[in-house]
């Protein structure tokens, strides 16, 4: 085997592909051959490194140098200067190197470290090569899980205190326990990869960057609850994720990590990828199950809960991608290690999607309990152009607007609840002083009207009325009572809607009015 001098990682994800990553990759490979460096330098594809809006990103190891906005024209210079002569191409360096780009636990320069548990391999390994995952201790946790017995696995997860990362904040071990104890000859594990929360794409990073981690998590989950079949219900638009997942599943089957009698354990398990058809409500687990069964994506009546009667009325666990990606690390390194991160009530890390008016938007993984201030100012480089922070919509479209007074609140599932806010999907949309709260609210309400499934009266017609009111206000044609109407309708929806979609709309409305009542009021003509 050749000893390779440099590894050049090119980040291939939905964003970089659009920026021309495939062409750059081709040019890079050709240039390296042309310069006769192919024995010394390997070009590897990897998933997203978490930065957005930086064009095509290339990372050169072992130096750990990041280049952004790389074009085909830059390649000859890059290869000649850096790879041949060992000189940095300063022009292409990500000068304000976003802090989330540090992928190890070691501090590098001034950058704030990220404890990467879920994203440990993302942006480092080739997601299309199972060997690279295995080389990073991948699939070790399966063996350990098999030695623990299903009850032992659930016990370990319980000790770790893992809470589901889908948004509802339900303890994972409890869900597994219900399904494990539920009678049934057939059980299922479903991964909810229908990432539909506006402004959230953290699951995509895992799916594109480290699909085997999810597969390993699902095998362990299946083993724990007694499911022999798993489904990954994935957002239909995530074509690269689907491609990589399917490739990963095929590789895992080839390595007999999926299929009959995995590692001679007597446990058999297989996975299928199912594409969603673009409905926000299918992120709700029972609507997801209906959709998976080929039906219209309406939420189901509860009880019975999926853990008792889910997919085809068999005991079923639905877990989010991020939740499942935590599993192999917890099993392999142990619950005690895991509890070393995060807070007492919510151990571990959280993957955030930071978008909006910040200097470096993207994906970061931070410990539970990290404050909003740290996330914005330490990880995301602060507000763009040095402007003032106005507020952040935290938790997705159905999250709460958090004002400056909330900047220093420790963010985890339990603590935010105290402040009538949610962690939700971990989306953080940051707004600077110039942002318009009415426009923002209008966009949120239009989204909900569009995504209401139509099952129950309050959500179907409440969202429609809310849109009418906010449109009126936005057009400066509202009346004083309209502001009250916004909170009244959303309160009725909270109390009477069928599923969380309609119930949660009161959060953005009440929090927006809490901080910015005057600003909304100013839009009402006198």
């Amino acid at each position, binding site marked *: 085997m050749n000893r390779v001098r440099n590894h050049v990682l090119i980040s291939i994800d939905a964003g970089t592909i659009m920026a021309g990553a495939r062409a750059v990759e081709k040019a890079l490979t050709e240039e390296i051959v042309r310069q006769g460096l192919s024995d010394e330098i390997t070009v590897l594809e990897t998933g997203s490194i978490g930065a957005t809006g930086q064009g095509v990103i290339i990372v050169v190891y072992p130096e750990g140098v990041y280049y952004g906005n790389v074009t085909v024209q830059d390649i000859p210079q890059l290869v000649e200067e850096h790879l041949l002569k060992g000189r940095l191409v300063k022009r292409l360096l990500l000068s304000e190197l976003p802090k989330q780009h540090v992928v190890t636990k070691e501090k590098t320069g001034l950058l704030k470290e990220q404890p990467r548990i879920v994203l440990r391999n993302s942006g480092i390994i080739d997601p299309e090569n199972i060997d690279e995952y295995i080389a990073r201790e991948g699939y070790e946790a399966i063996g350990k899980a098999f030695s623990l017995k299903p009850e032992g696995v659930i016990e370990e997860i319980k000790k770790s205190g893992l809470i589901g990362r889908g948004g509802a904040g339900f303890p994972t071990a409890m869900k597994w326990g219900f399904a494990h104890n539920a009678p049934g000859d057939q059980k299922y594990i479903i991964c909810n990869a229908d990432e539909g929360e506006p402004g959230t794409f953290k699951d995509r990073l895992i799916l594109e960057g480290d699909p085997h981690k999810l597969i390993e998590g699902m095998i362990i989950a299946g083993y724990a609850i007694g499911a022999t079949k798993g489904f990954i219900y994935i957002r239909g638009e995530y074509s690269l994720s689907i491609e990589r997942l399917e490739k990963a599943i095929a590789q895992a089957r080839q390595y007999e990590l999926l299929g009959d009698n995995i590692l001679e354990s007597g446990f058999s398990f297989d996975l299928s990828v199912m594409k969603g058809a673009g*409905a926000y409500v299918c992120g709700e687990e029972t609507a997801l199950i209906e959709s998976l069964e080929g039906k*219209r994506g*309406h939420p189901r*009546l*509860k*009880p019975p809960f999926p853990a008792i009667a889910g997919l085809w009325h068999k005991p079923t666990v639905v877990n989010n991608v991020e939740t499942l990606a935590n599993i192999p690390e917890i099993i392999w390194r142990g619950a005690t290690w895991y509890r070393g991160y995060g807070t007492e009530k919510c151990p571990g890390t959280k993957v955030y999607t930071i978008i909006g008016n910040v200097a470096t938007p993207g994906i970061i993984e931070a410990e539970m309990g990290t404050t909003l201030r740290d996330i914005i100012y330490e990880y995301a480089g602060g507000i763009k152009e040095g402007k003032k922070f106005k507020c952040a919509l935290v938790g997705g479209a159905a999250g709460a607007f958090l004002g400056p007074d909330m900047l220093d609140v420790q963010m985890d599932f339990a603590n935010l609840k105290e402040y009538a806010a949610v962690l939700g999907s971990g989306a953080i949309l940051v707004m600077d002083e110039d942002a318009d709260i009415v426009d923002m609210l209008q966009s949120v309400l239009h989204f909900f*009207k*569009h*995504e*209401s*499934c*139509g*099952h*129950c*009266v*309050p959500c*179907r*017609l*409440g*969202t*429609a*009325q809310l849109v009418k009111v906010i449109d009126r206000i936005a057009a400066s044609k509202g009346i004083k009572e309209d502001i009250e109407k916004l909170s*009244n*309708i959303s309160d*009725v929806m909270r*109390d*009477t*809607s*069928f599923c969380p979609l309609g119930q949660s709309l009161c959060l953005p409305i009440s929090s927006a009015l809490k901080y910015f009542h005057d600003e909304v009021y100013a839009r009402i003509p006198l």
Partner: protein
Amino acid sequence: MTKEKKLSITIDNRKVAVKPNITILQAAREHNIYIPSLCTLEPLPSYGACRLCIVEVDGLRGFPTSCTTPVDDGMVVRTDTAEIRTLRQEVLKLLLSEHPASCLFCTEHDECKDYQGTIRKVGVTTGCRYCPNDSLCELQTITEKIGLTETSYPVYYRGFPVEKSDPFYDRDYNLCILCGRCVRVCNDIRMNGTLSFKERGKQTTIGAALDRTHLDAGCEFCGACVSVCPTGALSTKVSKWYGKPDGETKTTCVYCPVGCELLLQIKNNETIDVFPNYDSTIDQGLLCVKGRFAIPEYVASPERLATPQRMTPLGYEDISWDDAIDEAAEKLSGINPEDVLIVVSPQLTNEDLFVAERFARELIGTDQIMSVLITDMREETVSFLNLASASSPFNVIDTADTILTIGFDSTYGFTPIGIKIKKAAKAGVNLTTLSVHESNLDIVSGETFQMNVTKWPALLDSIMGKMPGNGKGTKLKPLNKVVVIGAEVIFSPKRGAVFEKIVEMKDRFGWKVIVAHPYTNLMGLLAMGAFPGIKRGEIVSDGTKSTGPAVEDPLSAMDLARHRKVVYLIGEVPFENLPECDFLIYQNALSVKSTRKPDLVLPSSLFTELSGTIISAEGRILPIRKATDPYGKSMPDWQIISKISEKIKSGALKYSSISAIQTDIKKQVKSLSDVKKRLEFRKISAKTSGKGRTGKRLSDPKSSRKPWEEKYRGIALKDVVSGMLVIEERRRHE
């Protein structure tokens, strides 16, 4: 059976004992505690869409819906707090933001209700009457109960065109509140799946997939969706503007031998609509298109005969009943029995048939009581009767492990049987369908055979060959195998060979048989002995093992080619191969177009206008109840026959009431005295007569090549009920 332990719960400070495994709403209703709800309807599964039935439960977060929350021991429920009342009003306001509400909120609301109970023309001008459901509307009731007198949202009219292209019912989705009852009844109760939700969110509406018509989407036109609709969105074409019915009569459908219960809706002495009875033990409310939609138009047909008529050289003239009876009696008295042919419809009541049989045998002295099934079944009449009289009750399907359907389709008839089969198939029972054309059960069957009838006997042989215990002398273990035979085989000219195989399946291999034939009161006809060679009561089993009657081939015994002096049609129309005759008496409800014009016309009343009983295919004695007065001067068939008898021989056959006939029937047919008991029948076998065939052989009637069509008392439903024409055309295309 051990008694279920009751749970104790508290609703609105009232301690009540309730069954386990029910919802709070069900518990409240059992104890007459009102909770408003629009989407819930027994026996549909809970849905939780309208959100009006919210309650407060100690220990449960927020406001759970009572229609979806199961009761639990010790539960404390409040159904009517101030907060709940406000929330209900707000939800209802939202609901009404898309439902035309002029009938709900109007300054003249109360006056309107008190003084103008029916639909009025003025509404067309004032614009408040575009809904046919006024005073029947559940939304009106609930708005009143919830105490909403005004709304804060402007009403948005969705502007859908009213869908009128399908037969029987109209759809105005501007009035739809998306409670989903129709979708659930279509999918979960009828197992049909024509209706579903379309679009999403505010755009949600209901209809058939891909915007097809209901006819194209496989709708059975059972009308279940119309019955469950709480608003005026779905309405029956013929009855939609009648307003609220003033009465309801429970009776039995006479269009086929299933014997479904009907709830006739009566207004102003007219049958305007028919509803199913979901509590029925016979049909579970699973009416077919005929029972649901084909009755009002039939009984109110413009072809109804109102007075007796006599043919004159100048055409028909109306005559009095006295004259008509005189004329009939004159033609029939003292006549040689050989010269009379009496034809009865198998769709008459037991009472009619009993009187007709006595009239034929006792007064006229003839055994030749003809019925149309003899010319339909021809040489196979006896084997057909053998199968029909051995028919099993329909619930054998519920416990079957193997079901075979032969030439059976339940789209437009026998729906209670069809739905039972669909349920069984869905539960994993092995279903095989065999037919010439596509059957509606093919979609749920494990194996589907579509082939010519001539190939069926061989296929049935192979099915029988698979059976265990095929060897001679081996004891057969009890089997739960059911074969259902339908119109495609019954009316096939090649039915003989298939019947033989089915008899073999039944007698040798223990298959249970269900015969889906159209002769409503066939069992009553046989029990009353209104059939050549079968005595009154002879075929009704009294529990002993005595064998049933052996009958001669009725078609040759009847010798239809021979000229008669008088033919007396009772509830039947002139048929092909009707013997030539000097005088034709036509006693029926509707006028008939036929080449042989009747000489005397006697108007009969229809089943909605009289009382009586029939015997269903399952052997149940079912009541026909009078709902309206007889049409015009029409009379029940038994009464006309009795009057003619009186003229011929006073006192011989005098009946003045239905109860007198029923008393006689009970006296003479012992096994019919217990109305509750399901009747069993003796086996009818063929008498091998030494005489051989008598009379001329009949020519093959053209009708045997014509496709079979739905008839009542000889008149095709498609000729009387407009929607049935569309259905018949559809059936023929398939």
